[in-house]
């Protein structure tokens, strides 16, 4: 008799599990239908009164998050009926969310073509601005410039002491961002020519942590987006070219990447209005430069997903 009741309790648990899962499934469908409805009503409302309203989400790259957030704040204060929610989560999250329809805009600091598991042909690329990546070292390092080959040797652990490149007798401490970080991908691709780094380096989750640790650890070397570089760390010239805005816009300094906002298909309604706002002089000439990015409008060169650079 006991055995019987145990068995039946198991059956009931399983039935309940199925019930809850079914409910969750229904809920999801309903909510996605709901958002579709609100989307279409946005478009209708817009065409009738020209007023921008609705609700969109932009998810992805943490490097872009501060810029997009600041722009979204300005945008929504101008259009009080519109709501733009900006979230981080990383470029991978941004691309997969916009691809699966979980977000209206996917922020990414890599081309969708470069990310595994994403069908880039379904996504539309909107290049917002350019970010330069500088090689940074602890201020105690007296070396001012490294050749590309020296950089490669340092990051593959062939050179392990600063004296080998003309600096003090000090061990080199390599600090990375995690594999998959846009900053790391950019640095690896354009500063290390795609060479696989040694796994002796330490990894830090965020650019902020990298800056703090490079500033505090003697002999440390890492890489940071130009927007993070300040006087606590020392930016290194590569092959004699310092990481400056002019160097990047002229195409002399090679380590930079586009900041993309992807949409699934051509954007409409509020999404379109917000992307246009991101590219308007209002954002490009003020926010973008203030936050250490380079406006897309200033670029004198262009690069495609394969890395080919050509003058505009």
């Amino acid at each position, binding site marked *: *008799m006991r055995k*019987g*009741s145990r068995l*039946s*309790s198991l059956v*009931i*648990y399983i039935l*309940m*599990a199925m019930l*809850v*899962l079914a409910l969750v499934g229904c809920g999801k469908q309903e909510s996605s239908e709901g958002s579709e409805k609100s989307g279409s009503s946005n478009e209708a409302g817009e065409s009738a009164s020209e007023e921008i309203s609705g609700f969109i989400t932009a998810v992805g790259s*943490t490097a872009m998050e501060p810029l997009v957030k600041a722009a979204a704040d300005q945008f929504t204060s101008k259009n009080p009926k519109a709501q733009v929610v900006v979230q*981080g*989560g*990383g*470029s*991978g*999250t941004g*691309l*997969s969310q916009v691809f*699966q329809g979980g977000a209206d805009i996917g922020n990414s600091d890599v081309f969708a073509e470069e*990310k*595994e*598991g*994403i069908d880039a042909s379904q996504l539309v690329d909107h290049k917002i601005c350019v970010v330069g990546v500088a090689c940074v070292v602890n201020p105690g390092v007296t070396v001012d410039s490294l050749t590309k080959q020296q950089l490669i040797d340092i990051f593959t652990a062939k050179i392990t002491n600063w004296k080998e490149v003309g600096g003090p007798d000090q061990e080199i*401490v390599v600090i990375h961002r*995690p*594999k*998959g*970080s846009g900053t790391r991908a950019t640095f690896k691709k354009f500063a290390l020519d795609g060479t*696989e780094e040694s*796994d*002796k*380096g*330490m*990894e*830090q*989750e965020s650019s902020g*942590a990298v800056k703090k*640790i490079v500033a*505090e*650890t003697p002999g440390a070397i890492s890489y940071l987006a130009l927007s993070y570089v300040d006087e606590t760390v020392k930016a290194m010239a590569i092959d004699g070219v310092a990481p400056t805005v002019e160097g990047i816009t002229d195409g002399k300094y090679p380590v930079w990447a586009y900041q993309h906002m992807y949409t699934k298909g051509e954007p409409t309604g509020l999404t379109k209005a917000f992307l246009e706002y991101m590219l308007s002089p209002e954002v490009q000439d003020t926010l973008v430069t203030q936050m250490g990015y380079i406006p897309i409008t200033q670029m004198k060169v262009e690069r495609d997903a394969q890395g080919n650079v050509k003058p505009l």
Partner: protein
Amino acid sequence: MAKSGSHLVLPGLGRHVGAISGGYQKAIHMTLGSRFWRAAVFGRERGRSRAENVGRGIAFMCAALAVLVTIAIIAFITIKGLSTFTVNDVSIKEFLLGRQWMPDRPAEQGGPLVGSFPMLAGSIYVSLFAVAVGAPLGIIVAVFMTEIAPVWGQRILQPAIELLAGIPSVVYGYIGLSTLVPFIRNHFGGHGFSLLAGFLVLSVMILPTIISVSSDSLRVLPRQWKEASVSLGATRWHTIFYVLLPAARAGILTGVVLGLARAFGEALAVQMVIGNTRQVPHSILDPICTLTSAITLDMGYTVMGTMWNNTLWSMGLLLLTVSFLFIVIIKVVVKRMAPQ
């Protein structure tokens, strides 16, 4: 007592309500016809009040929900975690023993490698060392609190330990990063980010668990055992070391294993001080990487459903498996060692 509850609360209406709910029960019994339902929702006996039935129902639903959530989480992690091996065709041996972590290596250079041995080793090292430091310390504090200075030990140490347990792990990590890491760098050498920094931070974090579980198990020992030992001429030291600690060993070991589990699963505080280098350490001054740290580092950069992402779930499954193991150990220890 439960049976007479309705009569006590509502002496006038008791019989009436009882009769109604009895009939109601009968109807339900006839509809469902299940011994289980009657037992679970209404209890075995008839004649309960309606309020009691509702309460029982709610309690049952809550219990069922807790079980359901647990099963759902385990099922999800298992399915996700196993897909590395079923969908992406990575061998379990390569995942567990491989030393190369290159999940993003393109196919033309030899394809991705997802060896997680350095992270597994890092997790094991850091939690074992943490327990090696934290367990003796915690047990001694527990003895002090219960046997040596029960009055003021209780009054001062108990709140102090509760406070220690309440400090968020990010604060532990931040303190470690700001004080311990430069201290190790300046006095012991290395970069400061190290296995040493990791297990020192962890050993403080697991202290509250070990102390509170051990001191509870010491406190519940029968007073007579201590008295008997003392009356046989044993000193206080002898009593503590040869009578009380062995008698409470099941509880103490449970505390230690719980501490080990906490150390194994801790992510944030450890990640901030260990440097995150995916190599097996050769000295306690070497930087390491743990499974939890590896998951949080890569989490945001991977796309759901890719091999890289699946590997992170496999690490989660590995963590889950190990903590199950710890629970099994606790169960066995308590069963085998509990004083008769």
